[in-house]
């Protein structure tokens, strides 16, 4: 009988093969043991430019290219390592202080070990991605050394050794190897190899083994600008101390273990969802879970239990007797916890003042719970995933101890984030004096049970508060807008001719392949004044059969932005162009956006055209899509076009074609309205700037012109036509845009308010019914009333979103607001990435070009949709925030009286909307008179009656006169619009 056994010695490769064994548990709870082969080798280079021996063995890829060596031959030194040094951080160093490594003043020549990269990936994917980004940037000189695959540095786990200890040993082994390896090079005084770790045990062992090792803080102190960087290291010692605290000093309940939460959620006893903080009351949050039709509310610090807005949390519903009504009171963190001492830790989580505020709340709700107003209330029992990001804020002046302002001692201060939903962040810094009055970027590190506020660390300063640069950057950071200049790799994708690029003259040029020559048509574009990125142009001409040919021509961006090159990737990350009042953050480089793609007048441009034959009644007789070359005759502004249309003396061909388009657009609009399209409203204003200093001087509400709806109608028509076509061609992967019907509950409040206050019925069965009932909400004495209701109705709507057609059933494609079955975005490829994808899909659908993977891969499209949905929303919010900031600036030093309307009412204040500025602001009772007037709040009838120091009765929808001025809040340092009540009408 032959034996299959073989001796170890018989296999020449045995010494080079190891295996990696680990255990993982799957989502369904199964535990799997995975065994992987590991091939150990000796040709993994050290990548130091000092080393000659590694050069011979550097690997080559299939094309024969080598990866150039990364680590500098003369790395920077520190006070302890004057000869220069390479850094080898461990996993915790990256986990706790990734911002440090991204600094441009220090942290060059870093060796990232494979084991560290692996551990980091398991602990935090975003940090992993940031680190990989760093290793790819050429100037930072980060090198990934695959220590696990190198024979000399591979470490096998010993019996009884924990995984962490083994990994620490692997790091030390790699550091030691690097030291020995570099010592063999010819350099007389080679750089030191320094391990960075905060683990005391690891440091001790490193010292024993004779390896250079420092803790992060020790290392940073050796650097020149050490003090500044020191603030960016989170305080680990601090946290260790808290762990040792006695349990009765802990302020918050402990989180459940992950497995407990998972089983709880599975069995339906616990619920999982994203935690949202109410914009009016920082102690109230809500969470939407699938098990309940309405969101659960979470009241009070202890129930919120360290959850921060946006975290994915698990909640438990409280017993019925603890259910509460959502608060009708405004509670602002700054006002209530103003004089807290950041150094004091141990008191109760709920401070005296908070307790008082809550008590009043409780009394009020208690008296009413019998009426069944209470809503299911829950408490947070655990956090599945933190959604912490970097926050922009500033130091709370009142938390700074005066004497400490000069010293270099580390002080604890509070940071008040710009976003009101984020709690104050406790921060230790040595540069209080410097940072006071600046916008700064911070991040949250942890929130322990023993600390009332989360603990964070400083990242960088953006500049003085209220300077334009700092405020704009703060805004961009807060909304996660990518505003850095385009990298070189992106600019390399641009056409080499630059601004001299022209449509090739010869029709035989490959650029002309499949393009129609539409240069003879009378095409013009109509856009806002000063528009440089002209996406769309129109033409129309009568046909012999009595019908009318209409063409919409869209900039052919997909000709210049080829899928999957660096420019395309960058555009897909940016997702959209962001328009701020004084600034535009482009999705595509300027050259394309404002020149080569832009359908400028008098020059030839590539376009993607949608051509319809419309009957005089604006029904579509036929349509087709084609790539084309056009020459726009004129670029009008809305105002110019309107003047031309209105001026009867103008009878040239171009003007009459605009008139024909206008007539058609009115018919199209009527059809849409008949189908039930909603005309919604949001208060939009325009800032007038002084042309030279670009300081805001005036605020005006936007005017609506017929030419605007002309362009809008044809763009809608083009979008709908394209959506049909690409859905037909790619039923699984077409990129579309949907607008879900709002859930009925969203309108409960508004419908009730309208019924009680004005006796109007709001019917919401369909968009048609809603549109009709909104039309009936008219106050003959007050023309703005209808707009007010529309503004409020808009806020009840769902957000429209991009999606990939395979992810939804056809009935779900419906666009509620536009009342059409299918819709996409096609008409603004210069400023929206979704349109660019739609262009590629349409080009593939009309067989102009091959079907690319970006068009076909559903997973990829879903990821793209997810990103652009977020980007789109952020861009909108950034735009609005920018307008709000400039409205404040325009009002600076001025006081005006304006009319406003009450749109929300609380028991201790009310919100007034001033349409002429498009701003809303809260007026608190205590601002009305001193002392604060007594008030009775009739929640059923939305009436707030005051007595005592001021005799007044205000109710919802009431028109009031307010004084508008700007004011800088002393504690928050925020300049904002403030309203003062003048009189009620």
């Amino acid at each position, binding site marked *: 009988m*032959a034996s299959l056994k073989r001796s170890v010695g018989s296999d020449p490769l045995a010494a080079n093969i190891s295996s990696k064994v680990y255990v993982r548990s799957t989502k369904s709870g199964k535990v799997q043991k995975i065994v992987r082969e590991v*091939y150990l080798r000796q040709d993994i280079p050290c990548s130091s430019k000092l080393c000659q021996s590694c050069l011979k063995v550097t690997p080559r890829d299939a094309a024969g290219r080598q990866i150039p060596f990364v680590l500098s031959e003369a790395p920077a030194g520190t006070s302890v390592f004057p000869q220069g040094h390479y850094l080898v951080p461990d996993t915790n160093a990256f986990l706790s202080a990734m911002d440090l490594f991204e600094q441009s003043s220090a942290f060059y020549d870093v060796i990232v070990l494979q084991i560290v*990269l692996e551990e980091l990936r398991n602990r935090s994917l975003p940090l992993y991605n940031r680190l990989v980004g760093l290793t790819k940037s050429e100037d930072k000189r980060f090198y990934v050394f695959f220590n696990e695959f190198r024979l000399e540095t591979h470490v096998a786990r010993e019996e009884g050794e924990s995984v962490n200890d083994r990994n620490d040993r692997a790091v030390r082994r790699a550091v030691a190897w690097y030291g020995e390896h570099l010592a063999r090079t010819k350099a007389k005084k080679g750089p030191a190899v320094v391990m960075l770790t905060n683990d005391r045990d690891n440091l001790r062992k490193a010292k024993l083994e004779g390896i250079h090792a420092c803790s992060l803080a020790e290392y940073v102190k050796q650097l020149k600008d050490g003090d500044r960087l020191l603030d960016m290291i989170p305080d680990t010692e601090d946290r260790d101390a808290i762990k040792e605290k006695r349990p009765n000093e802990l302020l918050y309940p402990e989180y459940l273990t992950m497995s407990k939460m998972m089983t709880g959620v599975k069995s339906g006893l616990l619920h999982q969802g994203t935690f949202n903080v109410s914009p009016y009351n920082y102690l109230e949050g809500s969470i939407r879970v699938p098990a309940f039709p309405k969101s659960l509310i979470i009241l009070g610090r202890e129930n919120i239990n360290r959850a921060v807005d946006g975290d994915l949390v698990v909640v438990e519903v409280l017993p019925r007797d603890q259910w509460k009504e959502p608060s009708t009171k405004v509670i602002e963190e700054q006002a209530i916890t103003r004089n807290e001492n950041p150094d004091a830790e141990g008191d109760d989580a709920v401070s005296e003042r908070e307790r008082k505020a809550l008590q009043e709340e409780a009394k009020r709700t208690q008296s009413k719970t019998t009426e069944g107003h209470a809503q299911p209330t829950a408490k947070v029992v655990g956090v599945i995933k933190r959604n912490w990001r970097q926050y922009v804020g500033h130091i709370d002046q009142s938390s700074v101890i005066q004497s400490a302002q000069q010293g270099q001692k580390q002080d604890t201060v509070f940071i008040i984030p710009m976003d009101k939903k984020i709690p104050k962040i406790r921060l230790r810094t040595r540069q209080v004096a410097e940072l006071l009055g600046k916008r700064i970027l911070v991040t949250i590190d942890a929130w322990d049970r023993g600390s009332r506020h989360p603990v964070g660390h400083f990242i960088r300063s953006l500049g003085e508060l209220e300077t334009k640069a700092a405020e704009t950057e703060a805004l961009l950071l807060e909304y996660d807008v990518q505003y850095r200049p385009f990298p070189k790799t992106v600019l390399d994708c641009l056409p080499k001719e630059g601004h001299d690029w022209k449509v090739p003259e010869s029709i035989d040029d490959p650029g002309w392949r499949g393009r129609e020559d539409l240069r003879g048509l009378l095409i013009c574009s109509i856009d806002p004044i000063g528009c440089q990125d002209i996406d769309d142009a129109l033409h129309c001409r009568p046909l012999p059969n009595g019908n009318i040919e209409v063409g919409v021509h869209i900039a052919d961006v997909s000709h210049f932005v080829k899928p999957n090159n660096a420019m395309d990737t960058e555009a897909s990350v940016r997702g959209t162009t962001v328009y701020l009042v004084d600034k535009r953050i482009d999705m595509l480089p300027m050259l394309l956006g404002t020149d080569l793609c832009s359908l400028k007048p008098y020059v030839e441009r590539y376009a993607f055209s949608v051509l319809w034959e419309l009957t005089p009644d604006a029904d579509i007789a036929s349509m087709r899509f084609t790539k084309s070359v056009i020459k726009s005759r004129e670029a009008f502004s809305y105002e110019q076009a309107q003047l031309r249309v209105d001026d009867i003396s103008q009878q040239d061909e171009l003007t009459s074609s605009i008139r024909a388009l206008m007539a058609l657009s009115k018919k199209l609009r009527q059809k849409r309205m008949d189908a039930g399209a909603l005309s919604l409203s949001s208060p939009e204003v325009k800032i007038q700037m002084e042309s030279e200093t670009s300081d805001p001087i005036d605020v005006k509400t936007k005017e609506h012109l017929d030419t605007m709806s002309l362009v809008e109608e044809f763009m809608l028509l083009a979008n709908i036509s394209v959506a049909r076509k690409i859905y037909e061609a790619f039923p699984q992967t077409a990129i579309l845009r949907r607008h879900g019907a709002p859930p009925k509950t969203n309108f409960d409040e508004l419908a009730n308010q309208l019924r009680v206050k004005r006796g109007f019925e709001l019917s919401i069965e369909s968009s048609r019914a809603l549109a009709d009932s909104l039309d009936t909400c008219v106050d003959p004495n007050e023309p703005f009333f209808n707009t007010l209701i529309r503004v409020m109705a808009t806020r009840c709507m769902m957000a429209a979103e991009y999606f990939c057609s395979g992810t939804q059933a056809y009935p779900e494609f419906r666009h509620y607001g536009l009342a059409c079955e299918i819709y996409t975005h096609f008409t603004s490829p210069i400023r929206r990435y979704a349109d660019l994808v739609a262009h590629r899909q349409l080009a593939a659908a009309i067989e102009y070009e091959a079907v690319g993977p970006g068009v076909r*891969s559903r997973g990829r499209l879903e990821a793209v949709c997810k990103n652009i949905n977020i980007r789109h929303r952020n861009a909108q919010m950034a735009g609005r925030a920018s307008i709000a900031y400039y409205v404040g600036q325009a009002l600076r030093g001025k006081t005006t009286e304006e009319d406003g309307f009450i749109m929300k009412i609380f028991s201790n204040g009310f919100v007034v909307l001033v349409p002429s500025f498009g701003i809303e602001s809260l007026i608190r009772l205590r601002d009305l008179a001193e002392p604060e007037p007594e008030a009775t709040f009739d929640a059923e009838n939305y009436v707030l009656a005051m007595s005592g120091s001021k005799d007044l009765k205000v109710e919802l929808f009431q028109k009031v006169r307010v004084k508008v001025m700007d004011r800088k809040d002393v504690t928050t340092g925020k300049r904002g619009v403030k309203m003062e009540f003048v009189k009620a009408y």
Partner: protein
Amino acid sequence: MPLDTSAYSLALLRVDGRRWNELRRIHAQIRTQAAADGSSYLEMGHTKVMCVVTGPSEPGPRRGTAGAGAAGASKAVAEVAVSVVVAGFSSVDRKKRGRNDKRNLELQSTIANALAASLHTHLFPHSVIQVSLHVLSQDGSLLAALINAATLACVDAGIPMTDYVVACTAGSTSTYAAGDESADPLLDLNHQEEQELPGLTVATLGESDRVAVLVCESRVQVGRLEGMLAVGVDGCKQVREILDRVVRDKGKRMVLEGTVAKGEGLEDMDLD
């Protein structure tokens, strides 16, 4: 958990520490079951298979009725009947596969066709060559390992054949969707790579460039296919070298042990 395949570009190293053009360790043995006509055991990394060949022999009574249409053709040449049994313990999850599992059937017919192209089946009319394959452990490149093991067992069984049928897999370092122009081809995929990256299995006849099997079940840009195929064919040549060495070593040992006499014309063969 280790890194995934996207880390390749960092240092041109694959998830298990290989370069793009390296095979895993291949270990093979032949004549592992003395009682069988031909047998072999083969490991490619952690993929472990064994093969037993019975025949050429007279077809059993049950087989005659199976294919009535093809009966005429199968009489003139020997039929190659392949059965693949995947052991329940071979993968991480214990999975039960039915007898008529579609993937299994496809594996069987692919291997049968590949062998039939190389075996001199016309020498054995009215007979069956039964190839039984058993998968003991799976870690990617299963089809390639099965083909290699079957070839070895056929050699052991002494069935005349034109050349070894040798197989290996090839892949590409980035996914289809990533659309990375500079993607490197990869040789011999393991399980993780098979899951995450596009790949194909190629089998050639010995050292020639004649492709006997080409199976690609994943989506890959056509531009990358040529590079992958070239790498795969090159890998097959390396595999042939290894298998050939196994056969020769075994032969030498058998001559030395006196199990068989030295064949004619092999007098000058160096047995040391």
